[in-house]
């Protein structure tokens, strides 16, 4: 039977069902029958919410962030460098918090790999930031210059290889002096003469070291995922993507650069957004395939209410973002968009997607309004803020969650979740979120 042909002939809902089935039956041996039951119960609850049906109760999700470090009495830096400590902290977090979906430690990246690569996109504890700090931070810069759009549009791979990577991975700096790598003529000369260049020897050395280090880290991350699944905790880790506009505004051009481009070369920017879109789709779907989990995490940044006008959102942000979402939906994936800041003004626009095809996690958006506008079309969640968790009492948090459930939980299609991850807070505050889902979230 031709599987590919069969897949192409399926509707997006059918493809998604296939992916849900795979997600529900992971390739693990559950530690106990109870764990297996728990796994299916939790995940079914979550899947029903996505489909905007009524589960037995409101599902609850706590994005881990670097909280497990704080919770196990250690620092983020320790977890970034000591993979044994990472595993220990993660398993403790999973064991102690009864969530319906858990985050893999895959976002606590290896500090050693960053160091070997001389990675410049982030500062992290002990590397540009004080050692005891609880998060790494993005370093915004013009990693792509204003006059490099044509280079990107012509060949994004070449742009990455010879422009972006040499500027963001210090060890790859020699690649900037390379000639365009376009020889596919079957003769080995170009590649080999490149490899023979003494300037490139440190590059190979660093790549070798970094990949060996990465393998050690990856082994621990997948062991954590495996152990979590065996114990009955489904993982939310599928694919990841950025909205095309954010790819340029965050990664390539920065806030200043993108603002200038919107005025000085809007057409080039729009063209480049079209070029990057299919690439983002392909890599997100490939990652979801590999993980056996249809969720595609999309953090949203520079389309928030106060970043640009509605007109600019409609022109620069939404068209290619919607294209990305539709392609993911049509592949049976479930985009889980996490909208930082507030998205009140955008709700009417973003409604324009197939019913029950996506999940929206909001941070500061007015949840009553969100339910009002999106209540018939999309599953929503979020809004318990880091500031609340940091400064409030468990009683106040629980009461706030009760109100959220009352407003947003109506009729299903709702996930009780934080608006962002939290690096540290009274652990009882997170327990209060979970208790609220169990106590107030039961559908009758």
């Amino acid at each position, binding site marked *: 039977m031709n599987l590919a042909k069969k897949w192409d002939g399926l509707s997006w809902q059918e493809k998604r069902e296939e992916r849900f089935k795979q997600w529900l039956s992971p390739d693990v041996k559950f530690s106990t029958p109870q764990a297996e039951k728990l796994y299916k119960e939790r995940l079914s609850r979550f899947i029903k919410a996505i489909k905007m049906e009524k589960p037995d109760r409101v599902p609850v999700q706590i994005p881990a962030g670097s909280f497990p470090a704080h919770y196990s009495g250690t620092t983020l830096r320790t977890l970034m460098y000591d993979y044994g400590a990472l595993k220990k902290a993660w398993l403790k977090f999973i064991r102690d918090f009864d969530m319906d979906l858990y985050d893999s430690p895959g976002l606590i990246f290896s500090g050693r790999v960053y160091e070997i690569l001389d990675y410049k996109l982030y*500062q992290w504890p002990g590397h540009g*930031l*004080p050692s005891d*700090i*609880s*998060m790494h*931070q993005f*370093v915004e810069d013009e990693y792509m210059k204003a006059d490099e759009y044509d280079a990107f549009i012509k060949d994004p791979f070449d742009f990455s290889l010879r422009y972006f990577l040499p500027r963001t991975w210090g060890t790859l700096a020699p690649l900037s002096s390379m000639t365009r790598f376009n020889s596919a003529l079957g003769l080995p000369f170009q590649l080999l003469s490149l490899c023979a260049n003494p300037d490139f020897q440190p590059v190979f050395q660093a790549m070798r070291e970094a990949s060996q280090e990465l393998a050690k880290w990856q082994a621990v991350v997948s062991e954590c995922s495996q152990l979590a699944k065996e114990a009955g905790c489904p993982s939310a880790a599928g694919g990841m993507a950025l909205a095309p506009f954010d790819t340029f505004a965050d990664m390539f051009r920065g*806030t*200043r650069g*993108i*603002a*200038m481009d*919107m*005025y*000085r070369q809007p057409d080039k920017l729009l063209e480049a957004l079209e070029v990057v879109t299919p690439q983002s789709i392909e890599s997100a779907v490939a990652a979801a395939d590999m993980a056996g989990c249809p969720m595609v995490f999309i953090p949203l940044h520079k389309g928030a209410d*106060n*970043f*640009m*006008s509605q007109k*600019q959102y409609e022109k620069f942000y939404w068209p290619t973002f919607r294209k990305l979402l539709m392609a993911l939906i049509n592949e049976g994936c479930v985009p889980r968009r996490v909208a930082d*800041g507030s998205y009140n003004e955008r709700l009417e626009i973003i409604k324009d997607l197939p019913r029950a095809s996506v999940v929206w996690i909001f941070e500061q958006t007015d949840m009553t309004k969100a339910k009002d506008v999106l209540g018939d079309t999309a599953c929503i969640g979020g809004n318990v*803020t*880091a*500031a*609340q968790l*940091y*400064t*409030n009492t468990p009683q106040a948090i629980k009461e706030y969650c009760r109100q959220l459930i009352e407003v947003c939980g109506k009729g299903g299609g709702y996930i009780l979740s934080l608006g*962002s991850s*939290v*690096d*540290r807070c009274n652990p009882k505050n997170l327990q209060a979120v979970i208790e609220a889902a169990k106590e107030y979230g039961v559908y009758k």
Partner: protein
Amino acid sequence: MPKDFISLLADLEEEEVIKLTKKRLEAGDEALTILEDSRKAMEVVGKRFAGGQYFIPELVYSGELLKQITELVKPHLVQSGDTKHLSKVVIGTVAGDIHDIGLNIVDFMLSVNGFEVYNLGVDVPVKKFVEKMKETSAPVLGLSGFLTLAFDAMKDTVEALEAAGIRGKMKIMIGGGQMDDEVRKYAKADAYGKDAMAAVFLAKKWIGDN
């Protein structure tokens, strides 16, 4: 009728406003008059931002235009103008946090509203805030932060000002990404501002200029 200089700059017409700047200089217009007109135009930009017509791209772009105009005008400046400021304000992103988008918007809005702004940048150590507040005797301090780790850094900064015995001489406002009024209480600041307009409102209120 062709648009005047102030409208051209406020409407972000790059080519036209640069052309006009050169024309005015050639015609012998005072450099200071052009700068004063630019200031008025930036005030319009600030008002449009406050009114929800302009957003971050417009602030960035207008700042870029202003920079170009200043470069053109500079060689013609015979004496520097004595700008009269409402009051001094010190701002900065607290220790451990390297975010500056919001900080720079607050800088812009306070400046176009007549304040003399001392922007200490990002990841500002507690000590530096204390030194700057002593040096400038500014009556207003603005602490910016994007991340949750800024909660404690803000608290530490306020406490250091207390320990230095100068907390009573100033009003402190906080703002940025994850901040809210709960954090304001936690950090023992005087007010939380949800955006750059709030920063201007608070600063004006505190220096008694409404």
